[in-house]
């Protein structure tokens, strides 16, 4: 068995949009959004892989697919070398305990009518992991304090609306970590928070990783943040991985034209730029459009004829550095 905690091969998530009555009458076909369209990657035990992309690139959907929160198709979808089979009750129970999710918006991901203690210990309750009320409160207190909310019992009976954004996100983390997971999907966990609070949350996540040998799938639109915290970065565009490799390499010597465009516009604090930013022209195509060839070809500055005809395969240009581009 390998030391991969997650292994994904050719993952596809397609959504069919409901067509309106008028569209049906006009005989138009149902539209399909290929949110994730055949991606492969693996995450090692204790590793942080960042998925970077703009909205609609399928990065969140990928994370949810691994946790079985959206229907998907895949050639391979392994967790600790085993097929993720949520139809089987006993496997599902174990899987849910070891794979968790942290959401972007701590205002949306907490039930406004539940108290903090109930939110934090809910995973224990639904999985029947506590025997007594004392034990529940004790574990809840521990989890809160590990997440930096001390003293824990001060937070027990508060409601989410009584907490600040940073505190709420800590509650979310405390709840996600209470069962001691080994893999966590973190979906933009700090993008809703003020800069001065972000760091605390990220530090907490890194500390928990060190203590528990956690692996993170870190989903973000912020390339500089991905560079800072992750071991490897995968750049996504319209449901495809464009480039994947060591975070340092992606930032300093990315090969794919999309990666280059992203690193070009990365703000470098304190440095005054010369002339306008080097931006890509045009807009991201509509996700329902059918694109022949490379998904990026409509905006690619170096495209050639082949790009709009054939989809480029993923090539390993150097060990561990993958690029999907004809021109590399």
């Amino acid at each position, binding site marked *: 068995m390998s030391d991969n905690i997650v292994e994904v091969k050719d993952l596809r998530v397609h959504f069919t949009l409901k067509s309106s009555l008028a569209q049906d009458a006009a005989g138009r076909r149902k539209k399909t959004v290929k949110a994730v369209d055949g991606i492969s990657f693996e995450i090692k035990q204790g590793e942080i892989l960042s998925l970077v992309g703009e909205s609609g690139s399928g990065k969140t959907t990928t994370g949810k697919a691994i946790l079985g*929160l959206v229907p998907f198709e895949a050639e391979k979808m392994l967790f600790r070398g085993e097929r993720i089979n949520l139809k089987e009750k006993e496997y599902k129970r174990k899987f849910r305990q070891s794979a968790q*999710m942290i959401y972007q*918006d701590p205002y949306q991901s907490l*039930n406004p009518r*539940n108290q903090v203690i109930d939110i934090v210990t809910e995973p224990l309750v*639904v999985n029947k992991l506590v025997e007594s009320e004392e034990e529940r409160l004790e574990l809840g207190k521990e989890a809160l304090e590990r997440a930096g909310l001390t003293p824990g019992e001060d937070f*027990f009976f508060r409601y989410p609306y009584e907490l600040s954004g940073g505190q709420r996100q800590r509650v979310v983390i405390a709840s996600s970590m209470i069962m001691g997971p080994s893999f966590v999907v973190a979906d933009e966990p700090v993008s809703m928070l003020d800069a001065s609070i972000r760091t605390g949350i990220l530090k907490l996540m890194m500390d928990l990783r060190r203590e528990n040998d956690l692996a993170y799938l870190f989903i973000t639109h912020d390339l500089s943040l991905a560079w800072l915290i992750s071991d490897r970065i995968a750049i996504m565009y319209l449901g495809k991985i464009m480039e994947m490799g060591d975070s340092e390499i992606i930032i300093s010597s990315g090969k794919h034209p999309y990666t280059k465009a992203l690193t070009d516009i990365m703000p470098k604090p304190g440095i005054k730029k010369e002339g306008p930013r080097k931006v890509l022209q045009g807009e991201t195509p509509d996700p329902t459009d059918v694109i022949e060839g490379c998904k990026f070809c409509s905006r690619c500055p170096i495209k050639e004829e082949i790009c709009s005809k054939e989809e480029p395969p993923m090539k390993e240009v150097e060990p561990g550095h993958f690029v999907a581009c004809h021109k590399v």
Partner: protein
Amino acid sequence: MSSAKSMMRKRKLKEFAGSLRRNKMAMTGTIILTIFILVAIFGPIVVPFSTLDFGDAEDMMQPPSSEHLLGTDDMGRDVLANLMSGARISLLCGFLATIISMVIGTIIGIASGYFGKAIDNVLMRFTDFFLVIPWLPLMMVLAAILGTSIWNIIFVIGITSWAGTARVVRAQTLSVKERQFVERTVSIGAGNIHIMIRHVLPNVFPLIFANTVLIAAVAITSETTLSFLGLGDTTRASWGMMLHYAFESGAASSGAWWYYLPPGLCVVLVVLSFALMGYAFDEIMNPKLKER
């Protein structure tokens, strides 16, 4: 620790009471209803006449006097005493029928909204059926088949008035279901029942509550209507039965206003108080409607 919890509860209750007090509609409704409830409980004990005190011929259909404050009916009974014991029956009927309707409506609404697909389709067609059938004839038929006991009337009203609640609860469930905390709860391994009870129900409850209060008003009108049409429980003097007897004895044409006016007014007042409270609750608990 439990004291902290109970303090939390007390604080929330206080907040609720506070916004209730500031809301004039809610206040008026609550006061009227409280008076009626108190009268229903203590009235029959205080008034010196029983509903079974049949009078002599000269006592029949007497206008209000110092002895009989609201006069007497065609059997020589004290109207005030009848009115008070009628309050018991009518309110009891209203409350119980409402609870039945609330329970059915909530279960069907949540199940339908939460599970969606085929279950939603089946349950909603079933609900539509109850929503569109003319409820008065249905009630009359059911009451006639089941017999004229007060319990049957409660049952009949209960099972014919839940459809609206189910619709409202389903709509709200659909929106709660899409909230992120529900998905988060799925991801920690929670089952459907847990999510429905712990996450969906608390978030649709304010709506259920506001809706319920309005149903109570409908339930009381329905009871009155059924009784007036002669499908009521003849052994218990509800307001509807009083109106029924008043009509039969020709009180309206003979000008015995003290016989038909008081029960009519009582029905109107109680229904009004429920309606006022319902709208006010909706406003208090639905932050979107709250004026800033």
